[in-house]
């Protein structure tokens, strides 16, 4: 398959990094199991750099691999990231899971990735109706931090304004408590407790998840309504103010729970309450590591 200019540039950067020994591993994308899919690839030899590729099907957030012990062993790592994914790298640095010195960030300019279920059905066009909602609100088409930048050849994503990203959030906000409850009860009922949402999340890096702690078992293990709700609640709570919105949890969910409606809502609330957005600055202190004496107090009697 012919290389695009983007691919060539990407391959050159990776090859140089590996040849010079600046990194021992490049995490990137390569062609996947069908023409509309990309998959992660791990390159350790300069001559294999030609496997690297990038397109609007590069849906995965490769930062998730930075939490894997097997990957950490490589030491100095180069990673291919879209703007959204790059925020995960920043958040990992903020939370001491990664040292800036050990990572070379190959930032990919990106104008949106096509929803995987549509791509699987043959969709090839990037448009506001085919990309993920995260792409529609994306402020980081060019990553906020990078060592190398690979510019995109794709045209800018044109937004008509007719497609409202995460429109359900406003609708849910307007519902009564009962109605909200009914909505989420139905959604959580689907949950099968596979924890794919957790595994796909670059920021769920605990080596033992709270749900795996059984002395005490705070979160019921059952996959019925209460257990499912507890899991989803605590997962969302642990990511509040930390989630960078890559949407991998929702994409990984085999039963299509709209997890991003929760994550995005909490990101908005945390921003409104504390003026903090996750993953934008590696020197910023995480929102729940600090406080202000003038924090929101109205809800407390």
């Amino acid at each position, binding site marked *: 398959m012919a290389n695009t200019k983007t691919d060539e540039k990407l391959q050159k950067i990776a090859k140089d990094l590996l040849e010079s020994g600046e990194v021992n591993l490049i995490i990137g994308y390569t062609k*996947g*199991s*069908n023409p509309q*899919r*990309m*998959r*992660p*690839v*791990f390159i350790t030899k300069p001559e294999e750099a030609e496997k690297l590729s990038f397109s609007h099907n590069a849906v*995965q957030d490769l930062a*998730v*691999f930075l939490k*894997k*012990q*097997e*990957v950490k062993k490589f030491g100095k790592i180069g990673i291919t990231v879209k703007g959204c994914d790059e925020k995960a790298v920043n958040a990992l640095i903020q939370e001491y899971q990664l040292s800036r010195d050990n990572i070379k960030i190959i930032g990919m300019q990106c104008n949106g990735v096509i929803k995987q*279920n549509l791509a*699987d059905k043959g969709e090839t066009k990037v448009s506001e109706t085919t990309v993920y909602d995260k792409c529609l609100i994306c402020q980081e088409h060019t990553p906020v931090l990078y060592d190398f930048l690979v510019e995109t050849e794709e045209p800018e994503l044109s937004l008509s304004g007719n497609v409202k990203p995460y429109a359900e959030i406003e609708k849910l906000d307007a519902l009564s408590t009962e109605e909200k409850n009914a909505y989420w009860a139905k959604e959580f009922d689907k949950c*099968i*407790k*596979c*924890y*794919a949402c957790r*595994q*796909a999340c670059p920021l769920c890096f605990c*080596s*033992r998840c709270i749900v*795996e702690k059984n002395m005490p*078992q705070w979160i*019921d*293990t*059952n*996959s*019925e309504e209460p*257990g499912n709700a507890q899991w989803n609640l605590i997962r969302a709570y642990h990511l509040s103010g930390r989630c960078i919105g890559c949407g*991998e949890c929702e*994409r*990984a969910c*085999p*039963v*299509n729970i709209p997890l991003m409606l929760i994550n995005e809502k909490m990101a908005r609330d945390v921003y409104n309450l504390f003026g903090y957005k996750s993953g934008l600055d590696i020197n910023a202190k995480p929102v729940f590591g600090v406080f202000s004496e003038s924090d929101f107090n109205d809800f407390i009697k």
Partner: protein
Amino acid sequence: MEEKYFEISSDNLKKFVDRIITDNYEVIAPTDKDGDTFYGKISKFEEANLDILLPKMSYKEYLLPKTETLFEYSISGVDTEVKDGLQGITGANEKRVIFGGRPCDAGAGPIMEKVFNWDYKDEFFNERFKNLTIISIACEKPDNYCFCTEMQLSPESSYGSDILLKKSGDKYFAIVTGEKGLNLVKAYSDLFAETTKDKVPADKDWKKIFEIEKTKSFLDKNFEHNYFQERFLSCIGCGVCTYTCPTCHCFDIQDEGNLKEGRRIRNWDSCQFGIFTLHTSGHNPRVTQGDRYRQRLMHKFKIYSEKFDKYLCVGCGRCSRNCPEDIDIKEVAKNLAEMA
């Protein structure tokens, strides 16, 4: 019982489904939900989506629920009352029909039955399996992720189905494999017309792209092969493969309760989780994701077949389609076969 053959028109099939629903059968069929198709209870024929290849999840949960109560107890004063979980399900779903699944899904039942009746007879599984009537529809167009043919089945296999429907023009041929299916056909005999085997169109010649025996022979000899560590570096251990798999059956037994009441349950579990085979000491013999994915391959393509004479895989391809990191098990099995 020998296979029996019937014909049913498309119109009558619709009537059949609607009538059994009226007669209080619980009909589980592929139905559209949240932009995808899942197995779910339908209230009329139209709700079934028979056009898609396979629902996103298998119907495993009707054999092995994602959470099953094994027993419950309640305490009042110094008295404790225990209730067997089996009581709750005995005879409860005698009238449950899985309609519109594919031969691969149907094949999963008898394969799983083996492990649930090997030394200990799992009454929970058996009670559910016994009562389930499975009406499958043969596939006409498998996709690139399908490999049932390689897994000793085929898109037209009747293995595991009580009734297999094969479309032919505007009618279906119904291959009835046993009493359960026959009873159902007889109860609605006005809709079915008996026919003979020679009338049923012969199965197509489905081609294999690799030999699963070769895959097995690679696994027999290459436990420590580098392939596992390298290929599955991209595995994030999400377990979606195991949860969507119709044959994966690992479960985890847990207790829940307080000072007044409690229960013992079993939940789905996965060999892909970091705490799988984690010892109390903190040591885990399967420490990397490569180790764990190898375990899945070993279990599916080697260990199970050695013990039960069947591979623990029906080649439905769900694990590949649903893998967030695009790990294609068919490709993997083929790679291994090629390396053998």
